[in-house]
């Protein structure tokens, strides 16, 4: 009968604190065979129980999972067309919670990683064309607080589960799924229960040194302004190219071309030197998901000798919630747009009017003088 030889269990390996080489002498103080750093197997802090290079396991899988869940949850929520609390709060709370739950790091590292996760999610959304550059930047700022809240929730959940002695690995799987799908559930609830979109009105005025007649002649849409727009409009709005159509009669349709679509505006009211109103009848652009333009107007009133007060009004359907976050941003963008247009009008009133081309000399001939027609004749004549 053969005797079975039982080998004693191999002790867990230990590694050098400087070079992570495996330390072989286990029964007395010694030095690392690679870098000669001393260690003492009897003193816990003088060696590592894991290799230094294996630390990525503590954060990389959780980080990647968090970014993937954040991007997919945002894309999933966006499909319903409803952009509210689920999209801007539940999504960052969800991926923040996954990050807090699935990573183990020092405090500063986890704060840094969460900022990196936000940046990665935003970068992924912009790359997938699910958000523009300006929206992505704003999104990053809005995500900060809910992500940190989720992060704390994730850390607390992990600590509670570990302290209560539950099987961490088992719950790791199920809790993650639950956290990952929570924004989609929240989105469904919000879509069903939330009321209609609200209408917002933004008005901006400017007093210029021009008579109401000159101000009327200078009326132009955003697409007609020649000077460069401020950076915020560059980032927040599509780039205007040109407009086609007249705006001197009610019922005329002006088509405005942008780098990513068009907007059709129908002139509804023309009161020379007083008011020009229009309705937006069709928008073919992605920005329609964030705010749907309804109508707008230019109002001109005399403001003293040689001065006019021009007021631009834009009415739009608000699509983004909560209003306390988005409305100030929307107002800022629209005010900037109004100011840009008003500045364009002001410059137009100051610009010298081109004289009509001089007729060639015709000896002996006598011609009736032509009526002086300039490109300023009608607002709709402007290119």
């Amino acid at each position, binding site marked *: 009968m053969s005797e079975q030889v039982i080998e004693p269990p191999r002790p867990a390996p230990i590694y050098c604190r400087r070079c992570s080489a495996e330390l072989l002498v286990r029964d007395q103080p010694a030095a690392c065979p690679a870098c000669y750093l001393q260690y003492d197997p009897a003193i816990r802090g003088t060696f590592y129980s894991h290799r230094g290079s294996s630390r990525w396991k503590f954060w990389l899988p959780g980080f990647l999972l968090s970014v993937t869940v954040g991007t997919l949850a945002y894309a999933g929520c966006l499909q319903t067309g409803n952009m509210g609390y689920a999209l801007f709060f539940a999504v960052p709370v969800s991926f923040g919670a996954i990050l807090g739950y699935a990573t183990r790091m020092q*405090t500063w590292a986890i704060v840094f990683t969460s900022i990196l996760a936000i940046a990665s999610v935003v970068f992924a959304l912009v790359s997938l064309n699910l958000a523009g550059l300006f929206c992505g930047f704003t999104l990053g700022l809005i995500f900060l607080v809910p992500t940190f809240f989720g992060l704390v929730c994730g850390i607390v959940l992990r600590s509670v589960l570990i302290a209560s002695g539950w099987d961490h690995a088992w719950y790791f799987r199920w809790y993650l799924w639950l956290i990952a799908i929570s924004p989609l559930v929240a989105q469904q609830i919000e879509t069903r229960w939330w009321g209609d979109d609200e209408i917002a009105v933004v008005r901006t005025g400017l007093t210029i040194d021009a008579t109401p007649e000159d101000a009327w002649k200078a009326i132009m849409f955003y697409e007609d302004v020649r000077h460069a727009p401020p950076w915020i409009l560059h980032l927040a709005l599509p780039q205007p190219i040109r407009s086609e159509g007249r705006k001197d009669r009610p019922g005329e349709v002006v088509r405005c071309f942008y780098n990513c679509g068009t907007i059709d505006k129908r002139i509804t009211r023309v009161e020379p030197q007083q008011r020009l109103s229009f309705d937006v009848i069709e928008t073919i652009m992605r920005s329609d998901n964030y705010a749907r333009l309804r109508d707008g107007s230019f109002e001109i009133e005399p403001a003293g000798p040689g001065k006019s007060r021009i007021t631009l009004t834009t009415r739009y359907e608000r699509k983004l919630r909560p209003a306390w976050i988005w409305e100030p941003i929307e107002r800022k963008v629209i005010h900037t747009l109004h100011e840009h247009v008003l500045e364009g009008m002001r410059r137009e009133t100051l610009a010298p009017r081109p004289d009509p081309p001089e007729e060639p000399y015709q000896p002996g001939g006598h011609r009736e003088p032509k009526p002086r027609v300039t490109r300023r004749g009608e607002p709709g004549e402007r290119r």
Partner: protein
Amino acid sequence: MTVTSKWTAFLLSALVPGAGQLAAKSWTCVAWFLAAGLLAAAAQRFGDGLADSMWLTLLPLVGIALSLASGEHAKRLLEGRSHQPRVTRAEVTCAPSRGRSLNLAIELEVNQSAAELWRAARDLPRFLTLDPFHDEITLMRAAPAAGVDLVLSHNAFGRRFLRFGRIIAWREGAGYSFSDLSPRGPRVGFPHVFVIEVAESPPIDGQATKSLLPASRSRLTIRVRGRWTSRLVPVGVGRLWVWLVCREHARLLRKGL
């Protein structure tokens, strides 16, 4: 229970004034939150009215100053503090040195006998963490002696990293010296040596013969000698930086000894 690191508190308060104080479990967080809230409310309330004025430019600077002050306060809340501070005088001197070498000294007068001061100084894991950046000291043998390696865990502005050293000399009751080197090698990453000396304070003139009791005052000298190796930062800036760090070191010793 995890102890919040002082740099974590600093970073928290630098981001949100008061958050570090909250992490340090201090009620002063309320005052900082209030100050930050008031500043934010004032910026919101008067921001439009201050357009194009100098105050609008100053407002972010005030915010940054508030954050940094709050961060520093939170950090100090978590620093080790002795119940009965004994340091009566602290001085940092920078000896003239040539090239890239640095030679600074911190001198402290302590109301304690040299034997008591030595007992404090030979407790390396505690004494060496009375330092702006030393976070944890691991002695690679059971007792300190010349030739024993050290692992010096540093924490600078929240970033932890290890440096390695060795006790170069050990004179029981009088002092010791050790190196603090980068893991990349002894010629890079600001290699330096600490020399710690404990001595009886020289008697004040005329008092030498007045008392036969053992002196209850002693002097602690910490010399930092090293080489500024960075090519990106000029050596003059490096000297200034190390001098500032030594001043902070002296402050911590005043507080913690």
